[in-house]
């Protein structure tokens, strides 16, 4: 039973870490995109 629990724990842990790493990267990218778009709009507004 110990091995079964260990196997399922590892399986869920790896899946969770994989999904979490994607979520973190997506959040960072979305924030970066917002900042870049804001900078671009600002530049266009001042005609640079």
């Amino acid at each position: 039973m110990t091995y079964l629990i260990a196997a399922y724990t590892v399986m869920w842990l790896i899946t969770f870490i994989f999904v979490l790493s994607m979520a973190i990267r997506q959040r960072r990218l979305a924030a970066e995109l917002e900042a870049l778009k804001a900078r671009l709009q600002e530049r266009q507004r001042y005609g640079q």
Partner: protein
Amino acid sequence: MERWGVGKIAIFLHGLAGAAVLTALYMALVFAPREAAMGDVQRIFYWHVATAWVGFFAFFITLIASIAYLRTGRRRWDIVALSSVEIGLAFAVIMTVTGSLWAKPVWNTWWTWEPRLTTVAIMLLIYATYLLLRRVIEDPGRRARFAAVYGIAGFVSVPITFMAIRWWRTIHPVIFKSEGFDLSPAMLVALIVSVAAYSLLYVSLLLLRTQLEFLSDEAAELRESLDE
């Protein structure tokens, strides 16, 4: 910029994959009968086989996407190939760890250099190297071409790994035989549900991962236009 994985269909698919995984969990832990010789530890098998199948399938998708990239030069195929390797590698690691946890009570060892385990180790190294090599090539076009060629060549390890238990003498069990499945009907149903659930999870993760790469490209394009 093209994007995949957005909209209601994607959300529906993510939900469906989640529900399927929970159903598969029930099938493996409750529905499937207790195996007489191995006991409850045999229940690892349903997810071990399912993740192995998805890992192999993911690398097959990388092969197809790599060929498509070399033929068309479209970035989207490079993104699919990369995303599929990442997911396939995650599943292959799960397969290896769960296999090792099953082997300890059944074979009395965590690892042995028999044909299947050896070919799995080589396959893992090949695809881990794929990701490492992508990081060291800076030019995007060169990186994508190199990755596509590597993705095609690296796939040779997949059929060898799959066939290792049929070609050589090995202690690894052979479930899928030419004369049928070496499982009771209830166990077979649990296995099919697990494979289907993990396949859905793969598609769901592939959509998320490709979308992430499209976002990354969009950010890179904006950065470039700001630098001009």
